[in-house]
Every structure is written in structure tokens, then in C-alpha cells.
């Protein structure tokens, strides 16, 4: 009984403090600021002040929530909460150095499932809001997720196949090889679309459909969606670092290397986002099914060859 309580406590700790909400939120804001600043500097602009994402969040917390007429209140308000909870729970599973939560067999499956929840929430948010624009955004998001999830899931599953286990800690400790490299490329291919960044920012195309599927959200629920996005950035970059960057025996060094790798990945996708224009949905689809499919096939083949 005691063991159950203590492991529950460590999960709670992982969820609430590190790598959960208390530390991931500032980290997410930092990464958000880094991306916005980098975009601005690449465009020759000054860019936002350092605390900008924090100010945005606090301001939204202090605003009124307008709920559109004819919308189901409960679902409307629950979606952002579920979204934040799911990404944070997913982050709590990632074996970052200092994560108090014990690693479970099969937690990769749980992680992949939890990572789909915010996307689901976004799609539902678009449909629930009863706004035409929100529904178009939701449709685009849902369709796009069918495309980018192919390389994304294959990259992780190939790593699981390589490590011979669906446990995050084994994935992290798997001996470095060719599959790591191939899977990393496949993962990076899916990343811009997962982060809704430029060539694939089809679901949040503010010039075409006004805003993303949060179009009808305001005040604290919108703040939670923004927070969920920030934590998702941390989740994606740190997941990449944990799975694909070779670990050293020293946890502190690992942590620094992971954070640096996360920032480097963000810098790369931001550079791509600034240098490119938005694709159409069909083009993005074709890209992911052709090139993403090809990369996935090569990666899977490499795991089988060995």
C-alpha cells in the first residue's frame, strides 16, 4: 500500500513541479519568447520583450470569458483544461533528468496517446465553438494530423522496435545507431506541422481563416490553450532530445544538453518557418504521405535489417 502511495506522490510531483506545470510553463514561455524573438530578428525587427509570453498569459487570465450563444458551456470550458492536463501528463512521463516519476513498461504508448489529446481538444474546440472559421480550422487540423502523424508515430515506434521495448527509459538508453539518425530525421520532418509552424501552419492560417480553432475562446480558457501550446513545445523538443540525443552518465550534463538540443531544434524549425510560405492542405498532405512515407519506410526497414 505504501508503495502505491509513494509512487502516486511521485507522479503528482512530476505532474505539478518537474517536469510538470510549475517548471515547464516558464520553460515553455522561454521557448515561445525565443521563437518569437528569432522570427522578429530574422525579419529585421526588434521583437517582443523577454517576459512577453508571461504578460500575454497573465493578461488573458484577467479578462472576461465570453461564451458564444448556443454553445455547450461544459465542453467549451473543459477542453482547454483537458488539453493542458494531457500535455503536462505526457511531459511527466518523459524521463528528463530529475523526473521523480518511475518509468513503467509501455509508457511510450501512454505518451503517444496523451500527445494526441491536445490535437483532439483543438479539433473539438473548433467544432464546439459553432464558428464557421473555427470549424474550417478544426477540419484542417484533423486532416493534417492524419498526414503528419505518419512520420511522427513511425519515428517513435521504430525507436521502440530498435530498443525492443515500449518503455521510455529503455528508449533513452538504447545504444546509438543508424536507426537513431533515420528516426530523428523522420521525427524532425513531422515537427513543423506538429508545432503548427509555417509551411504547415494551415490550421492556424490567420490570413485565410482569421485565427486557429480557438477563435471563439477568450479570457482564461484561451490562456490555458496558450499554456498548453507552450508546454507542448517543451514536450516535443524534450522528447526529441531524450529519444535521439545520446545520454551521458551525468544527469546535470544531460539536462543541459537536452535543453540546448531543444533550443537548437526550435531555432531550426523557426528558421524554416520564416523562410517559407504556407502550403495548401493538399500540398502538405502530399508532402507528408510521399516524403514522410518514404522516410518512415526507410526507418522501419533499417530497424528490420539489423
Amino acid at each position, binding site marked *: 500500500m505504501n508503495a502505491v502511495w509513494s509512487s502516486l506522490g511521485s507522479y503528482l510531483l512530476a505532474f505539478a513541479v518537474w517536469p510538470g506545470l510549475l517548471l515547464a510553463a516558464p520553460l515553455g514561455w522561454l521557448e515561445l519568447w525565443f521563437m*518569437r524573438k528569432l522570427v*522578429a530578428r530574422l*525579419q*529585421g*525587427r*526588434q*521583437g*517582443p*520583450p523577454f*517576459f*512577453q509570453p*508571461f*504578460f*500575454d*498569459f*497573465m*493578461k488573458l*487570465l*484577467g*479578462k*472576461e*470569458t*465570453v461564451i458564444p450563444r448556443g454553445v455547450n458551456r461544459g465542453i467549451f470550458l473543459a477542453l482547454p483544461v483537458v488539453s493542458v492536463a494531457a500535455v503536462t501528463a505526457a511531459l511527466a512521463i518523459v524521463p528528463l533528468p530529475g523526473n521523480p516519476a518511475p518509468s513503467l513498461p509501455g509508457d511510450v504508448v501512454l505518451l503517444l496517446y496523451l500527445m494526441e489529446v491536445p490535437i483532439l481538444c483543438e479539433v473539438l474546440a473548433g467544432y464546439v465553438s459553432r464558428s464557421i*472559421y473555427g470549424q474550417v480550422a478544426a477540419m484542417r487540423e484533423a486532416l493534417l494530423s492524419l498526414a503528419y502523424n505518419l512520420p511522427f508515430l513511425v519515428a517513435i515506434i521504430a525507436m521502440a522496435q530498435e530498443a525492443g521495448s515500449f518503455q521510455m527509459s529503455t528508449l533513452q538508453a538504447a545504444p546509438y545507431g543508424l536507426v537513431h539518425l533515420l528516426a530523428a530525421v523522420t521525427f524532425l520532418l513531422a515537427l513543423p506541422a506538429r508545432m503548427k509552424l509555417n509551411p504547415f501552419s494551415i490550421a492556424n492560417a*490567420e490570413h485565410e481563416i*482569421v*485565427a486557429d480553432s480557438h*477563435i*471563439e*475562446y*477568450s*479570457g482564461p480558457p*484561451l490562456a490555458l490553450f496558450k499554456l498548453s501550446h507552450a508546454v507542448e513545445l517543451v514536450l516535443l523538443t524534450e522528447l526529441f532530445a531524450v529519444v535521439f540525443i545520446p545520454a551521458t552518465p551525468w544527469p546535470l550534463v544531460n539536462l543541459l544538453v537536452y535543453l540546448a538540443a531543444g533550443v537548437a531544434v526550435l531555432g531550426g524549425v523557426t528558421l524554416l518557418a520564416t523562410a517559407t510560405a504556407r502550403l495548401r492542405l493538399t500540398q502538405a498532405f502530399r508532402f507528408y504521405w510521399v516524403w514522410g512515407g518514404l522516410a518512415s519506410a526507410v526507418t522501419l526497414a533499417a530497424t528490420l535489417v539489423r
Partner: protein
Amino acid sequence: MNLIERVIAISRRRSPWICRLNAGSCNGCDIEITPLLSPRYDAEQLGVELHGTPKHADIVLISGTLTLRSREAILDIYAQVPNPKAVVALGSCPASGNVFAGSPLVLSESLDSVVPVDVWVPGCPPRPQAILDGIARAAKLLEDGATKSQLESRRGRLS
């Protein structure tokens, strides 16, 4: 005022999200908003973000001559902006109707008679720096809780 309220008040000044509303403008004023996003003026240095939907906005920039039909639209959009909110009137048109005043489909009255205006930016069209100045003033009013809608709601709560 406790700490959280203070932080929120500061955030209101540091993160003014704007949404623009063309109430029948000749487009001159709207064109002058575009340079705000360009490298030279870069409104993002003040935390300004341009949003397409009133639900995300703190400040509504209203430009153009008020017409009989845009009156309803202005009221509708204004009602959708979550509190606390501010209104910035761009150019001469919202203040009086400018050269269009007196034509049959134009309201020919001040925007203040439709929604409470917090900042007037003169010009036809105003220069980008004047618009930026107007946004900064409105953001300061939001921090101080001194926009007309904030004062109104406080009065409503007291009575």
C-alpha cells in the same frame, strides 16, 4: 491592490492585442496600420499583436466614416470584445464624418455616440507613429483601469 491584480494590470499594458474594424473607411487609415507590423515601427516591441477576431482583442481600432449599416456592426463587434476593453478611433472620419459628413448614408456624428471612445488619433490618415502612440495610450488606460468601459463597469458594481 494585491500582487496578482498588480501583475495583471501591468500585463494589460504590456500585452495589448488589437483588432481593427473598418466602419466604412477609405482604407487610408487601415493601410497605415500595416507599417506598424513592419521592421521600422514593429509594434511587437510593445507587445502588440494584431488579431482577426474581437474575442482575442483588448483594443479595437475603429477607422472610417460611420455609415448607417456599419453602426450595427460596430455595436456587435464591441459587444464581443471581452472586458476590459478600449476603443481607439483612427483618423478624422470617426470623429465627425470628415468630407463624407452630410451624405445620406453616413451617420455624420461622433463615434462616441455609438461606443465609448478612449483615444482619438487625429490625421487623415494618421501617421503610423501616431497610431502606435494611440495604442500605447489605450494600453496605459487599461492598466490604470481608466478606460470608459472599465469606469462604467466599476460604477455599475458600486450602484
